[in-house]
């Protein structure tokens, strides 16, 4: 998994000097990992109706890219977006409560796992439809440009989403109009059971993107520092009015596509190998340890804090009330006079 740059980028993957920053990233990744393993467990326990898509293994993509953003920057996700939501600052409590379908969830139970949102934190929603979040982010970038807001919009998409036509319509428009937009493709090698070699004609997703007239880079998505550097460079470009960037982040999902996936499409050894040799959390931990910025106790403390945070979120979700069934329907007030039907 070497870093490939389709077009030269001057981002250099040098870690920030500030150990506190890196430890915060590590802590955030640990929260996501715990959140995801607990979510899977709770899905099997029928606590989470309809199941979830776990992002375990992909933590560095979300945290690395979102830590390159400012609070005013907007993020839109995919069906697999717990990591994006948490990295963008959504409280684990409101996310977990949403997975449960409780009134205290971020949409009061209307949305569920694939429809997380937090407008106050500029997390513009995850999305059940492959490729669609990219479009919402692209439109947001258009608004930013028209409103001359000093901000960027980031959309995520999977490797599978690189085959849906809308993805390339969105990229074309963003590139043509030089929108402050970053497309991040989480290439985790699979779309459900389909390995990228059986879905993508051509050499690489970044290579495909380059044909649409925007800088397209491929980075090791398990290296949070590299992801952060690529996203920072892309953000700088966007804020400078130079237009969008496409980042292909090469990563891996540890769990099945969704809860219940039999995973007969890959060897357990492949998963084990990624876990053992390409784990983003262990990589950052090691980097910090080598610099003398994190000892065993420090790591254990971060883990414990993550575990406690997630336990608190679960407790919160468990204790929260169900939504009032009177909220099933939104009132559509504006145009509807008395007497209009339905």
């Amino acid at each position, binding site marked *: 998994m070497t870093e490939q740059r389709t077009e030269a980028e001057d981002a250099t993957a040098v870690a920030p000097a500030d150990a506190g920053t890196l430890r915060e990233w590590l802590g955030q990744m640990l929260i996501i990992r715990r959140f995801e393993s607990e979510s899977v467990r709770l899905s099997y326990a029928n606590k989470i109706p309809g199941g979830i898509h776990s992002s375990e293994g992909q933590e560095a993509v979300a945290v690395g890219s979102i830590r390159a953003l400012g609070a005013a920057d*907007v993020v*839109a996700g995919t069906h697999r977006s717990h990591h994006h939501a948490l990295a963008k600052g959504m409280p684990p409590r409101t996310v977990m409560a949403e997975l449960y379908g409780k009134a205290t969830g971020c*949409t009061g139970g*209307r*949305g569920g796992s694939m*429809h997380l*949102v937090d*407008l106050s934190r500029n997390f*513009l*929603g995850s*999305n*059940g*439809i492959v490729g*669609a979040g990219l*479009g*919402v*982010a*692209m*439109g*947001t*970038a*258009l*608004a*930013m440009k*028209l*409103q001359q807001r000093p901000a960027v*919009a980031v959309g995520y998409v999977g490797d599978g989403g690189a085959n849906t*036509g*809308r993805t390339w*319509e*969105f990229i*074309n*428009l963003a590139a*043509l109009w030089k929108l402050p937009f970053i497309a991040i493709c989480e290439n985790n090698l699979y779309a459900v059971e389909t390995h990228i070699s059986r879905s993508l004609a051509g050499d690489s997703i970044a290579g495909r993107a380059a044909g649409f007239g925007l800088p397209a880079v491929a980075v090791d998505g398990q290296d949070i520092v590299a992801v952060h550097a690529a996203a920072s460079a892309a953000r700088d470009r966007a804020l400078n009015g130079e237009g969008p960037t496409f980042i292909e982040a090469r990563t891996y999902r540890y769990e099945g596509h969704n809860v219940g996936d039999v995973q007969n499409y890959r060897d357990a050894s492949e998963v084990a190998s990624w876990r053992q040799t390409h784990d983003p959390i262990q990589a950052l931990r090691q980097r910090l340890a080598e610099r003398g910025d994190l000892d065993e106790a420090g790591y254990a403390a971060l883990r414990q804090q993550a575990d406690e945070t997630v336990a608190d979120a679960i407790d919160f979700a468990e204790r929260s009330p169900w939504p009032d069934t009177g909220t099933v329907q*939104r009132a*559509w007030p*504006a*145009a*509807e*006079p*008395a*007497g*209009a*039907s*339905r």
Partner: protein
Amino acid sequence: MSPLSYSQAYRAGLAEEMEANPGIFVMGTDIFLRGGHFAQLLGLGERFGADRIRDVPISEAAMVAAGVGAAIQGMRPVVDLNFQEFAYGAMDELCNQAAKIHYMFDIPVPLVIRATNGIAYGGAQHNTAMESWFAEMPGLYVAVPATPADAKGLIKTALHLDDPVLFLMHKALTGARGETGGPDVRVPFGRASVVRPGDQVTLIGYGVTVRTCTEAAGQLAGDGISAEVIDLRTLYPLDVETVTDSLRKTGRAVMVDESAGYGGVSAEIAAALQEAAFDYLDAPILRVHAPHSPVPQSPPLLQAYLPDHGAVEQAVRTQLARP
């Protein structure tokens, strides 16, 4: 004011709102110079500039997605699809994104999708009565002006709503002329208009079939039959009350549209009316529509395809012939 064409009236309403609200901008193919395929935006490119009358490559999903994202961010985009059928390429963006975001996320999506609908020359792929699809989809509003005044007044209202509006203008009305309201006249959604009063039968239409109904009413009047004509004006919300009030008076209703005659708005009207005014019905509600078939191109075939006032008169006579 001097009379404007349907197309000019739309443009006038849009331009007034654009002057008042800098957040409004238009996206579509071939709108900057050509003013769209029905000249609906002619001259606005020069007037408002290329940022606000924004030509987009042929990528309907992208233009609607751009509209959804921009709308969420506080802009008021109008996406002009030219032909309603081009919405097929943006159906997820329209129905799974635009229509559902306000419900799921509690974020307003003030997006207008303008398109030309109705049956005319151009062949099957450019002519489909699919406006009922949008009316059926929770989260979308649907406006179908039949006159210049409504084209102007309804677009002005649409540009003040918090939810996506499908604004569908009938091809065959493009050049129709009429008086229009002033800058403050907004036509509300969900209020049908009684176009012609009568008391023996209620004829209901929208878009071009309001004209069909009016023609039929004129003919029937010659035979001493008094028909009330109602223009629905918006398909969602649907003003069942006004139609029911009329039916309570007349006891008979005929719904006329260019649909292929299955489900849709005309079925909704019939279903809702028989429920709302069962005891007032002197005859079954009849529907006059096109055959269940794609649309042909050849002039005699197209003429045979389209419902005309003769068919409406026939339906009324059938109702009146009941013992």
